């Protein structure tokens, strides 16, 4: 689906990512864990094309993404801290985003009804609560049934019911064969959603555990494993 080869990203002298290679698999939730500043968001932004890679390449369905914008037709992205033009209404924002993808006519608006969001659609964005802003972000990222869904700490700031709905949605899309990239610091969420687990430390891919290996680990004690991994990485 999406494969990254030898990706290096430097900001000046700082190495945000070092020689990162990985194939993200279809129909799996790949969770990227790592301490703050380990390069998780940088990796996502390279895949989205916000950042120009220093070295290496990213292939989307076998084609390099360099100089391309059309591949983003198939990506849904949920940012950590979303913001939209503050005087527009959610319904206008959704219309604006829809018109960015020519050709799409069928929209997945399931989350609007599941979040019971209809009452918020015609209020100015600046008057929405933090959680309702984040919900709009979620609705937009699933709107086009994208093949690849990139979620940067999706449930941060959501109430328990909403995050449950969102997690169910993530699992549903995964079972439909979508590729999902997730970062999170919430252990419960990681345990519930993860198929493949990779860990970044100071920009390097330190560990990878496939879903098959995770299944063999009978206790599925992911939190213990992650803590072990963090400790190992620090001791190296």
């Amino acid at each position, binding site marked *: 689906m999406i494969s990254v080869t030898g990706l290096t990203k430097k900001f000046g002298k700082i190495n945000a990512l070092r020689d990162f290679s990985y194939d993200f698999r279809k129909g799996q939730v790949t969770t990227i864990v790592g301490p703050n500043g380990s390069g998780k968001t940088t990796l996502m932004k390279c895949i*989205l094309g916000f950042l120009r890679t220093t070295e290496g390449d990213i292939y989307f369905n076998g084609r390099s993404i360099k100089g391309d914008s*059309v591949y983003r037709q198939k990506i849904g*992205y949920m940012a950590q801290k979303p913001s939209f033009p503050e005087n527009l209404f959610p319904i206008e924002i959704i219309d604006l985003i829809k018109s960015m993808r020519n050709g799409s006519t069928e929209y997945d608006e399931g989350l609007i009804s599941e979040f019971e969001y209809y009452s918020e659609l015609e209020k100015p964005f600046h008057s929405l609560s933090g959680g309702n802003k984040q919900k709009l972000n979620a609705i937009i990222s699933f709107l086009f049934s994208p093949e690849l869904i990139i979620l940067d700490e999706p449930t941060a700031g959501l109430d328990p019911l909403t995050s449950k709905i969102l997690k169910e949605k993530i699992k549903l899309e995964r079972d439909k064969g979508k590729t999902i990239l997730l970062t999170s610091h919430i252990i419960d969420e990681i345990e519930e959603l993860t198929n493949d687990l990779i860990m970044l430390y100071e920009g390097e891919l330190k560990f990878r555990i496939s879903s098959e290996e995770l299944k063999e680990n009978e206790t599925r004690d992911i939190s213990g494993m992650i803590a072990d991994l963090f400790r190992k990485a620090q001791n190296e």
Partner: protein
Amino acid sequence: MSKLLKITGYELKNLTRSKWTILFTVFYFVICESLFLLEDKGEKVILSLFNFILLFIPVISLFFGITFINNEKPFIELLLSQPVRRRDIFNGLYFSLSLSLTATMLIGVGLPVVLHYHSYKVAIELLLIFFGTSVLLNQVFIGVAFLAAFVFSDRSKGLLFVIGFWLFTFIIYDIAILIISYVLKDYPVDNLILFITIINPVDVGRILLLLQFDIAALMGYTAAIYQMSLGSFLSSLVLKFILLLWAYLPYFISKLIFRKRDFIL
């Protein structure tokens, strides 16, 4: 193309609903109306209006401009994650901000001018130069705001640059001209001054309008030099070209940067 129109249209809607845009329009209108009440000779009113505009266009365009772009940055990221060319995103933001600030000024200043037109009667050409220069100056400072916002990822650095530029056009430049003409008073500095004027768009705009009056006493130092060395017609032609360049270059350079740069919030 339709994506560009959509972004421009919705951003324009967003700006039109902003309380700031409404405030600026009312502000321009109130000040202009009071100037018309204070002065009654036609050309004098235009001159006072222009001095007032020279003071406020840079402030409004620079500071509102950079605040607007900084607030839009997270949304720009979201747009970047869509299948849209970066050029369209940039132009959408630039066109919507330009249109709304130009409309703000044209309504706030233009309405009083039209309302009082019968009572002061100035040449249409003067009015055209007046509004043309104002619109171009507006573009200059919006361009500089975009440049500051996209050259510096750090918001406070961008704001600092904008403050510096504003101080330069208002105080530092005048002091520099004063010092140069005083220190070098024994040498022929006219050509040097002609050249230095180019770096301050506010002065270029000011000279451009003053040349229309042909009253040497009103002109001030730099404008007088222009008229003496190049004559009114050639000066006005050269200055129009410089002002156009000032309006276009910051836009062009910041668009180039926007298309190439990394986006980190």
